[in-house]
């Protein structure tokens, strides 16, 4: 652990040292000013210049594994990976060229040579970085032939489905698990052709070894890791995505509720969220089933002789108001109170506070901050 920490801090230090110094560079013949300490990829992303990537995730430390993000830099003999190259004053960068396209096509063909031809039924189709890049660079399966993995789909836990055959070994899942969550659940295992991300001894993910934060799923660029609960419930592009704030702990993570036919079928990361940058925990990512629980109350209920009876809103509200009026008149407003909820919104809490003070007339209002 300590070794890990020292190493990283050393790298960071070097970057931090000159961080923030303004520099001028040229990207595709366009002059751009930016700050030192950023990588070429980061600057391009900020300026809206597309560079394909497969192993990059803003949440992770630079890795440089897939070599899809190659750019040409004047004065350099070979193209460099933009995700690991820091900007320098006066750099002249080209992000698309015949040569680069050729290299990218080769990389993609190699990946596809050990990839199932399953886009039709794949859970990830339409939201898959690999599919998108193959399309963009017009790479078809079978341009290279080679040995293919033929491993079974793993559904050995309730949250995460793992289809190793679709893994492109970008190691984003293992890095997020070890860098960001530091759960140490998965790592690259095996050697050579048999290298793949997995748990120790291939044991199923369980509470003993995994936090089920789903970070690995959120970063996987392909259909290798997918949310098991959402499988078969709809394609990404067929879903309404509503950005909202988590209703569990006080961290206030943002995410997208993915809705199909008035049902929340999935939660996806909001990578721009200021608080959580796309990270979530088990509750935020997988704790949405209660929304559509059959146990939700659907109508107002009034208790008569110890038993609940369904009532109309009018009946329930009239009865409530009548009883409150009576009790306030008889005993005074000091004998009546209200509890608000930290699950409710600011607006609802403000109104409850106002309602108790104005309509009831006492200050007997509290929330559960204390409990």
């Amino acid at each position, binding site marked *: 652990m300590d070794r890990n920490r020292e190493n*990283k801090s050393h790298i960071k230090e070097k970057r931090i040292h000159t961080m923030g110094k303004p520099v001028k560079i040229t990207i595709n013949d366009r002059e751009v000013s930016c700050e030192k300490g950023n990588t070429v990829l980061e600057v391009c992303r900020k300026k809206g210049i597309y560079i394909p990537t497969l192993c990059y995730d803003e949440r992770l430390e630079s890795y440089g594994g897939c070599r899809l993000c190659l750019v040409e830099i004047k004065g350099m003999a070979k193209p460099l990976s933009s995700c690991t190259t820091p900007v320098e004053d006066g750099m002249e960068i080209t992000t698309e060229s015949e040569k680069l396209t050729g290299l990218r096509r080769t990389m993609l063909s190699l990946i596809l040579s050990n990839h199932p031809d399953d886009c039709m039924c794949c859970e990830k189709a339409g939201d898959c970085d690999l599919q998108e890049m193959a399309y963009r660079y017009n790479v078809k399966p079978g341009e290279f032939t080679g040995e293919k993995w033929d491993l079974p789909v793993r559904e050995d836990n309730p949250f995460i489905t793992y289809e190793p055959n679709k893994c492109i070994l970008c190691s984003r899942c293992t890095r997020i698990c070890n860098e*960001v969550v530091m759960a140490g659940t998965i790592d690259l295992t095996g050697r050579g052709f048999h290298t793949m991300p997995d748990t120790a001894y291939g044991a199923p993910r*369980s509470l003993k070894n995994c*936090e*089920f934060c789903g970070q690995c799923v959120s970063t996987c660029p392909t259909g290798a890791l997918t949310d098991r609960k959402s499988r078969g419930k709809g394609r990404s592009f067929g879903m309404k995505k*509503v*950005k*909202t*704030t988590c*209703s*569990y*702990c*006080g*961290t*206030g993570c943002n995410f997208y509720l993915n809705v199909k036919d*008035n049902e929340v079928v999935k939660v996806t990361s909001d990578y721009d969220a*200021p*608080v*959580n940058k796309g990270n979530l*925990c*088990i509750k935020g990512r997988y*704790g949405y089933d209660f929304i*559509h*629980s059959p146990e*939700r*109350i659907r109508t*107002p209920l*009034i*208790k008569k002789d110890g038993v609940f009876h369904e009532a109309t*809103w009018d009946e329930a*509200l009239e009865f409530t108001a009548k*009883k*409150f009026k009576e009790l306030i008149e008889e005993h005074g*407003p*000091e*004998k*009546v*109170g209200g*509890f*608000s*909820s930290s699950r*409710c*919104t*600011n*607006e609802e809490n403000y*109104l*409850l*506070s*106002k*309602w108790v*003070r*104005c*309509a009831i*007339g006492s200050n*007997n209002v*509290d929330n*559960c*901050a*204390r*409990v």
Partner: protein
Amino acid sequence: MASLAAIFGSGAMTNSIREIEGMEVIFIIGSNTKETHPVIANRMIKAYRKGAKIIVADPRRVPMVRFADVFMSLKPGTDIALLNGIAHVILKEGLHNEEFIGEKTEGFEEWKKSVEEYTPEKVERITGVAKKDIVKAARLYGGSRKAGIFYTMGITQHTCGSDNVRAIANLATLTGNIGRESTGVNPLRGQNNVQGASDAGCMPNVYPGYQLVENPEVQAKFEGAWGVPLSPKAGLKATEMIPAAHEGTLKALYIMGENPVITDPNTHHTVEALKKLDFLVVQDIFLTETAALADVVLPSTCFAEKDGTFANTERKVQRVRKAVEPPGEARSDLSIILEVAQRLGYPMKYTSPEEVLLEFGQVWQNLAGITYQRIEKEGIQWPCTDREHPGTQYLFKGGFPKGKVPFSPVSYTPPAEVVSDEYPFILTTGRNLYQYHSGSMTRRVDAIESHAGEPYVELNPSDGERLGIGDGEEIRVASRRGDIKIKARITQRVSSGTVFIPMHYREAAANVITNDALDKKVKIPEYKVCAVQVSK
């Protein structure tokens, strides 16, 4: 968080979550951050990987201990002694911030005397933490001018909870570790909108925006804004309303979205109290244990079915958006309250939730600049006093609202309930990673339930061996108030003599056996320390 407000003039997290990455020293006391605030823990891990030192003080070997340079496994309820002991060492080694103390604080000399007696030797005896660890923690925290303290209910759920918070504030004041970027005091709110509910004045002694009910000028201001005469008397706290109901002095209660039967200490007492009410209305999404006792139950909406805002633990006001229609005839809490108010003869007219927030901003300057449009993409942290104001990343940049920060002497008092021959174990309660609070939401997630659906009590292997209790065995845990049957989980997470029960499971509600002695000042029930016996 009343006492943090008393000291610094505000009870919210002083830093932002993203500033955690820049901290040199992170002192976590009484917070199981990796399980209760996992994404905040991610930020701490990021700081750790950049070289930050982490100090953890907790009775349990919580997961963050893996990253700690110092782990202080203190006996439950001895936080004040530990914090005073750390202050003692900081003073003795001259690590305090004289400039800050001279310019920005008051009461230093008197307070200094109060920590004199907390020598590492004495503190070791009280807390069980080795002297050398106390000194190490003091050197780390006192040696840094870019340190943050983090705490949650672990620190406030004691009879001496508000004193605990004072002791924390004293440490920050002593070292000047407050009021700068990546430097401050940070209570982590357990529930998503505790901050907002408090901001909104859902507290008996203050109107929205922490404005005192008993201040006549404030009263006049709100009478003007709301158009009716208001009571000049502070009301009852939640933890006073339940006993009042029990005694028959509270007649009716309106509960919006809470489940006190599970979340309040001493469940039997709470049930009896609610049954004694003449009238109980519960507005909720499920027929909870509390709703089952109601005379009227009103079906409301969950976060996915309504528009509004939440304020997170770093004061950031963020949007909640409606994604789906509510089931059946369920209605938003907002529209239900409006209807009830109307029928009680106090009509309130709003055409949208935003209008409510705008009104909130009119009565509380700190929100005055926030509109839905401004927080469409990204939330804003209050104070945000006008439409141009960018919000406030960390508090007290320009000084403290009350002028000087007072040192407040606090002394260690043993927990209300101490162990005896008959009740030799200390029970502490809390959350686990997978379930949430009373469980009414997470326990309805099948996949979570199938993995973490069973209640358990954590027991140290040596205690297990001594009592002949094996892992998974069903045992009885009893306090002076009640008992439950529950499965044993043998683990090093708890030290010998301590047991831990997560609070989420109604079939083994830990609160059946916990203590409802209340904190002297802020009335937080003492969940954390309770003497129990453990038997087969």
